[in-house]
């Protein structure tokens, strides 16, 4: 499969599509990475927050005297000190008009969740800062809290008085009543309420910033753990009323994000406001307990879902009525993300009619934050319901899906909520999964095992997802490529990689685009002073957008290189081929110039250049997305064994059959899928960001918040299908899909294993105790 970069006449696609070893690895494997906590500046102080121990409390007063008396403490800020410094605070993706939750940097009169930042301590070391934090005396008046989001709308207590309600917002498509007729006449209707627990991204590195403000120059440098350095800069500029060009944000290495580090949250706002007051650099890095109680929760939602079928099992209608827990301070405004659950609920199936309603509510818990495939609940609910339907209709769940999955020849297809899918292959991808699984063989194995009193199960899931958003501030991406005087290449892109390998993939793309050797290309990312504005690594956008940016920029340089070489070699520009960092005349490879020789001409001999060709070999260009969404689909298949005595689930095989289009680097694609799959497995079987009835977080350390280890995960097998997108290179996004497809596959496998017990799985997580309870019921 060649890409259009190759079709542009650069020569063969040498690197795209290959399992190239990563350029990031040399530093990361040797401990030479630079994560935000590795940054140390002269005179740097360390910060630590005082956080509310109550889910809801009036803050009557804060006595900082004992804390300030502690040797080594430099400053202590409360809301009165920092909050007035806010000029404007809004995220670029939301815009200034969105009716956002009020976002006071430090809690003012009211603490609204356990972990709510109430004061900021700055001291010589984190050790002393924590000592001082314990000495800050906050006079709290505990108040009744709203903790159960399913009752939040009717609760007496308002999380945000000024909002007048705990309902943040509601978005709906067709009302449920629009389906009354089709439901009444359907051969079969299945309806369940499906509940997902709160869990969280839990990157191995928490959030953090180092800020270095120079009063003399008015320049602020921020080192950040982030997925979007430019947004950090822009947000900060608005927040402080400081000109954007005097702020520099640098991220070198970020230790995972998965959505939690896309947007600036209140804690970071506090540091931005405090930094200019300190006169010395300041660092804040959250510890694990803070990450678990204050960095944001996700996935906490439920919905009543309905599917109607005709006599042959063809879907006649789909409906979803969904509510999600958004905590006290959701980031960003959650209502439109919730609507994605509604509009994507029909999935990659042929669905004639659909209704949806989504509601987002406040509670006195930590705010909802983005997490890999934030709308993934739609796939969980739909795929679990499909299996329940299959069981009720006495149909094979594979056959039920086969009848309803969209085929390539039906595309483009507009789902009943207006989502127009193209360039996907749901049925074909599904059939590949079924074959890789040897579905019939598994059913035989399952039957034999049941005879022996062992309970094996198989679960499948299909999803379609929009990647690479082509609207708003996500819609463009820029690259600068400098071919240096020696002929070596530097490619600059905005970056934001928290592990998604875009240093390597951008180098691969650039090497291909210029016909340069991989080792001659280097990339610089994540520094707002040297790279063009980019929205960062979010929405599985990096592959498509960087491919476009590199293509736009490289094509300018390619033309120049060929023109310069042609002129020097006395050949036609169309006959110049670029490969191996050389420009050669087609048919006579011995006749050519190295990129270094071309560059030397461009930089040092400008008067010898052909007319119309500017000096130097640098170019910048910005790509604008071709489409509003780049659609991707996949099928996940999982087999398991359930120990019905203990309720433990052991995963046996895990297969991902996906169509993410052509791959820049198959290692990277598979790695992204694997990471998402294991987070999905964690979300079904192990992870639970739990609160007690009073709103106290219960899982505040890794001893209680259980992240899967190597012993809990199976070997993942992959099948790739490559349906190109209309976008550059045909590339699509793959970062989020693993976390979307995995939970339903695992749930369905467990439910299938427990089928002899007539168990319906509609509530997560499936801890061993929960499985046993299901069997007992």
């Amino acid at each position, binding site marked *: 499969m060649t890409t259009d970069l190759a079709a542009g006449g650069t020569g063969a696609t040498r690197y795209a599509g290959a399992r190239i070893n990563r350029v990031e690895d040399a530093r990361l494997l040797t401990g030479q990475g630079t994560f935000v906590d590795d940054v140390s500046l002269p005179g740097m102080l360390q910060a630590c927050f005082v956080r509310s121990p109550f889910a809801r409390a009036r803050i009557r007063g804060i006595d900082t005297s004992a804390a300030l008396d502690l040797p080594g403490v430099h400053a202590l800020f409360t809301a009165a000190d920092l909050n007035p410094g806010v000029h404007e605070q809004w995220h670029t993706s939301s815009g200034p008009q969105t009716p956002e939750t009020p976002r006071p940097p430090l809690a003012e009169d009211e603490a609204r969740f356990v972990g709510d930042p109430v004061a900021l301590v700055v001291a010589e070391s984190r050790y002393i800062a924590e000592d001082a934090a314990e000495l800050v005396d906050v006079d709290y008046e505990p108040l009744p809290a709203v903790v159960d989001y399913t009752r939040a709308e009717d609760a007496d207590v308002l999380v945000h008085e000024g909002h007048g309600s705990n309902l943040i917002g509601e978005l709906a498509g067709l009302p449920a009543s629009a389906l009354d007729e089709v439901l009444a006449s359907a051969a079969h209707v299945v309806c369940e309420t499906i509940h997902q627990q709160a869990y969280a991204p839990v990157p191995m590195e928490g959030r953090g910033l180092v800020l270095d403000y120079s009063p003399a120059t008015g320049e602020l440098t921020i080192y950040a753990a982030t997925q979007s350095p430019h947004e950090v800069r822009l947000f900060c500029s608005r927040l402080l009323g400081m000109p954007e060009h005097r702020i520099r944000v640098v991220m070198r290495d970020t230790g995972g994000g998965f959505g939690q580090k896309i947007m600036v949250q209140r804690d970071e706002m506090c540091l931005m406001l405090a930094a200019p007051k300190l006169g010395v650099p300041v660092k804040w890095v959250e510890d694990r307990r803070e990450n678990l109680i204050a960095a944001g929760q996700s996935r906490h939602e439920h919905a009543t879902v309905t599917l109607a079928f005709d006599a042959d099992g063809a879907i006649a209608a789909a409906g979803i009525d969904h509510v999600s827990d958004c905590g006290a301070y959701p980031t960003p405004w959650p209502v439109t993300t919730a609507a994605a659950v509604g509009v994507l609920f029909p999935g990659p199936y042929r669905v004639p009619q659909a209704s949806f309603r989504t509601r987002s509510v406040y509670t006195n818990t930590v705010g909802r934050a983005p997490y890999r495939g934030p709308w993934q609940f739609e796939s969980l609910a739909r795929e679990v319901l499909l299996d329940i339907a299959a069981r009720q209709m006495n149909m094979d769940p594979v056959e039920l899906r086969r009848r309803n999955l969209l085929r390539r020849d039906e595309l483009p297809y507009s789902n009943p909520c207006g989502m127009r899918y193209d360039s996907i292959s749901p049925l074909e991808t599904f059939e590949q999964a079924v074959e890789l699984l040897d579905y019939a063989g598994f059913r035989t194995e399952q039957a034999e095992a049941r005879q022996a009193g062992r309970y094996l199960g198989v679960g499948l899931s299909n999803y379609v997802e929009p990647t690479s958003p082509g609207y708003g501030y996500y819609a463009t991406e820029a690259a600068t490529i400098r071919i240096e005087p020696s002929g070596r290449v530097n490619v600059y892109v905005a970056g934001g990689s928290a592990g998604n390998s875009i240093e390597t993939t951008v180098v691969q793309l650039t090497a291909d685009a210029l016909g340069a050797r991989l080792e001659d290309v280097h990339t610089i990312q994540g520094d707002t002073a040297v790279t063009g504005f980019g929205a960062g690594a979010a929405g599985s956008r990096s592959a498509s957008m960087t491919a476009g940016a590199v293509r736009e920029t490289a094509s300018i340089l390619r033309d120049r290189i060929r023109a310069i070489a042609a002129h020097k070699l006395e050949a036609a520009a169309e006959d110049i081929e670029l490969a191996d960092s050389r420009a050669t005349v087609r048919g006579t490879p011995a006749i050519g110039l190295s990129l270094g020789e071309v560059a030397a001409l461009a930089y040092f001999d400008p008067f010898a250049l052909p007319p119309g060709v500017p000096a130097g070999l640098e170019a910048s260009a910005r790509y604008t997305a071709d489409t509003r969404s780049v659609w991707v689909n996949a099928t996940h298949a999982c087999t398991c064994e359930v120990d019905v005595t*203990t309720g433990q689930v052991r995963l046996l095989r895990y297969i991902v059959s996906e169509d993410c289009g052509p791959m820049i680097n198959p290692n990277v694609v598979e790695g992204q899928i694997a990471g998402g799959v294991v987070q999905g497995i964690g979300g079904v079987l192990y992870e639970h960001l739990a609160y007690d009835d009073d709103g106290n977080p219960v899982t505040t350390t890794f*001893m209680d918040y259980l992240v899967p280890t190597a012993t809990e995960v199976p070997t993942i097998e992959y099948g790739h299908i490559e349906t190109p997108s209309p976008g550059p290179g045909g590339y699509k996004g793959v970062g989020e899909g693993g976390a979307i497809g995995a939970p339903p596959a695992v749930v369905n496998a467990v439910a299938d294993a427990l089928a002899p017990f007539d168990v319906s799985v509609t509530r997560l997580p499936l801890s*061993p105790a929960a499985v046993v309870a299901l069997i007992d019921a």
Partner: protein
Amino acid sequence: MKPAPFQYHVPATIPEAVQLLAELGEGAKVLAGGQSLIPMLALRLAVFDHLVDVGRLAELQGIERRDGQLWVGACTTEAAVEASAEVAAAVPLLARATPFVGHVQIRNRGTLGGSLAHADPAAEYPAVALALDAELEVVSPRGHRTIAARDFFDGLWSTTMTPDELLVGVSFPVWSGRSGFAVEELARRHGDFALAGVALGVELDGDDRIRRGAIGLLGLGSTPERATAAEAELTGRPVSDVDPAAVGDLAMAGLASVPTDLHGSADYRTRIGAALVTRAWTTATATATATATATATATAEARHG
């Protein structure tokens, strides 16, 4: 997540250590491997003004036979216990339990004595010590005394040692005869604290009758538990007469303070506890049954020779 300040003491001898503990009182804590203590300090769940580091005292290290028992110094690391051929031969239950203790990185620092003194009811070593009627040797400025395991654990993270007593060693009885041992536990992930577990030993006489059973339970109370009633019920019976499922149920009877938490209710723990005891019983009795009397005698003689 940084600990609160403390003063650090490194006594050169055991007497110096206990003298320090006596002087410093309740504000002092013994530091051995630190694998249980340091997380609590980091989370500021516990604060001590003084830590007394006994980890380097040579007299607290070692594994050796003493008077027909196996003595393990309190500061012997779990890794050393795991690697010890002596332990494997003399106290198989201890050898079987050790791989369940956390992960290798924990076992490289964590100590047997530290685990016992920390007295977590879901830990393996307290249940093993209780099952085997180990003897715990403690020293204070008042001298030595030995505390039987059954008298050692008196509550959640609590022992009957006085604040000025230091655990210096543990003696484990060595079982000769036709015996079998098994450890079963259920943890959410490999290496996690058990939701429930059992450390079990059974010895048969020459006629395949149960001479004795030792059933230590973890995760099923605020201390490790000993299923003494079940053991009494089993003693003297032909092993083939005993239904392993019944052993599981017997072992769970009478447990008064099975915990309930996010990971499982008391009912759930009791239920899997029974299943785990059943599995352990099946394994251990199979081993014991397969051990021929003559072999057992020869082995016993070799050990005592």
